[in-house]
């Protein structure tokens, strides 16, 4: 498993393809077809483990949720079929729409900036001259592994409502009145967005770092010869080559943002499921299921959320993918 040797293999590309071209001509059509067939079988075989596990532990819960969307069920008594009434209850509930609004606002403030900063951090962390690389890479990832218990406590202390809390104190130096972080419309959203950003930016950074690692070195060398500076390298090489990874993170971040749950829940503590300032869609759903014993409306909410996520994910990823389509490898 010597990485260097694999690198050598990659660099021999030129020779290899010439070699392969001559050999390919020698192949009979029949043989070529059987090769295709073998690939197809391998393809199915290789993706089979995921689908087997999915059909065991993923499919049943999904179907069960869809089924529940049309039932009234408190978790213990027998279910009763109620048609579309769960959907009606949810879609006409102002609190549901408030939670949609909250989720989107926090997503824009807390999740979207991660993607921009993630790329910048990844680029900087990959710079050759950088010393203490180890150290910086580890620290930037630390929030992801820091226990939520500690994170919740820290943030509730930093963003406490009292005038003496650290953030309010700093604001007072700038002449701003103390903010009510636990129950005001914008205070809660800002504090939670900062928490989300803080916790996940390192996660995206290391995904981008993996992406940067997959960019062939020669591209940068060629760019250097052409006189490109670091910033130009970032814009004209790193960014376009990272595109598939950007699409990946845009997709996962869209899903993550719309499914936001842990951060607001731990930040708000006792009032998490009782106030509407920062209630997200999944919190709304969880409240229905586990605080109100209404699994039917919770499932209906999940189905609505599923549709929303699909729409948002398609829009966001195609927005990113649409810009300067540059095909590299095989992008399905």
């Amino acid at each position, binding site marked *: 498993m010597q990485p260097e040797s694999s690198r050598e293999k990659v660099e021999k590309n030129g020779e290899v*393809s010439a070699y392969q071209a001559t050999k390919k001509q020698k192949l009979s059509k029949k043989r070529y077809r059987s090769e295709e067939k073998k690939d197809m079988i391998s393809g199915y075989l290789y993706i089979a483990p995921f689908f087997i596990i999915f059909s065991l532990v993923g499919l049943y819960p999904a179907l069960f949720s869809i089924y529940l969307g049309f039932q009234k069920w408190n978790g213990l008594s027998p279910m009763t079929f109620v048609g579309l009434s769960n959907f009606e209850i949810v879609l006409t509930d102002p609190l549901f729409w408030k939670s949609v609004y909250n989720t989107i606002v926090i997503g824009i403030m807390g999740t979207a900036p991660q993607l921009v900063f993630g790329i910048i951090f990844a680029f900087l962390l*990959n710079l050759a001259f950088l010393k203490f690389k180890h150290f910086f890479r580890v620290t930037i990832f630390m929030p992801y592994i820091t226990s939520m218990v500690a994170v919740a406590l820290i943030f509730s202390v930093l963003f406490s409502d009292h005038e003496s809390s650290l953030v309010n104190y700093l604001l007072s130096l700038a002449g701003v009145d103390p903010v009510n972080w636990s129950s005001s419309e914008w205070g809660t959203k800002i504090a939670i967005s900062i928490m989300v950003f803080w916790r996940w930016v390192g996660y995206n950074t290391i995904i981008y770092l993996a992406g940067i690692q997959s*960019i062939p070195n020669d591209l940068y060398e060629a760019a250097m010869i052409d006189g490109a500076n670091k910033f130009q390298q970032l814009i004209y090489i790193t960014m376009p080559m990272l595109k598939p990874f950007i699409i990946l993170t845009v997709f996962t971040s869209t899903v993550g943002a719309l499914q936001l749950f842990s951060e607001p829940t731990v930040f708000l503590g006792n009032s998490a499921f009782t106030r509407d300032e920062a209630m997200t869609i999944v919190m709304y759903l969880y409240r229905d299921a586990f605080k109100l014993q209404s699994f039917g409306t919770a499932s209906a909410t999940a189905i609505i959320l599923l549709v929303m996520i699909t729409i948002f994910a398609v829009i966001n990823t195609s927005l990113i993918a649409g810009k300067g389509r540059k095909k590299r490898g*095989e992008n399905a």
Partner: protein
Amino acid sequence: MSPLEKRKSTPVSKILIYVLLSIVSLFSLFPFYWMFVMATNPSSAYNSIPPTVTPGRLLVDNFMKVIDKIDFFQAMWNSFVVCSIVTIVVLFISSLAGFAFAKFKFRGKNILFMAILLTMIIPPQLGLIPQYFLISKAGLLDTLPGVMILFFLNPLGIFLMRQYISESVPDELIEAAKLDGCSNFKIYRSIVLPIILPAFATLGIIVFSAAWGEFLWQFTVLRDPEQYTIQVALAQLSNTQNVDFGMILSGVFWATIPLLVIFLLFNRLFISSITEGSVK
């Protein structure tokens, strides 16, 4: 960004980069540091205003209280077993499927890939009851495999691997290997695997930490103290009343250290990987 526009990085731009990264590190590290501070202080420091920010002297005392109350090392071992197996299985399943999606042509490929993405969007909070039902019917309640199986599902891993493999493994290399009579699995093992090590490092860290920190599912499945994973064991430390924060945070702190070690190990793999120092 203007300082960066010079042909060669000037000391000024380098210093700026160091300053920026240092500030980021400081913010990232602080809660972790604070966890250490709480782990070394008495319980009352927790609620003090202004907050205590210097380490105390109870490093050992607090931890002794932890191992007195719960079987800390057994729980750490259980978590380690769960997370290691989960990580290995996920890496294997994801890279194999990622390889297939990136390099093979087969019917329904795109639809199947979309299907995998769709599995990501089911909110996990709702699956709890049916998943629990399945595990209990399969007789896996209160077992570590019962905890693991849910973590085996990792669409993100397939997504990441597919992207990475299609980027970094040249088609020509695979074609050539085929012509030399390599089976597809051999290609996977001896060509694809070595190239995707950095992506393994990334995915491995993510999967391991996520499984390590997860609580709700593990708590729901496990009930025998001998089977407890670390998060479930730590939950035994806190009570609604009479809370000893110094002890709790001590447990939390020491339970996070293995993650740090794992990260450093994976990071080494990362650093020594192929394009190290590519940008000069």
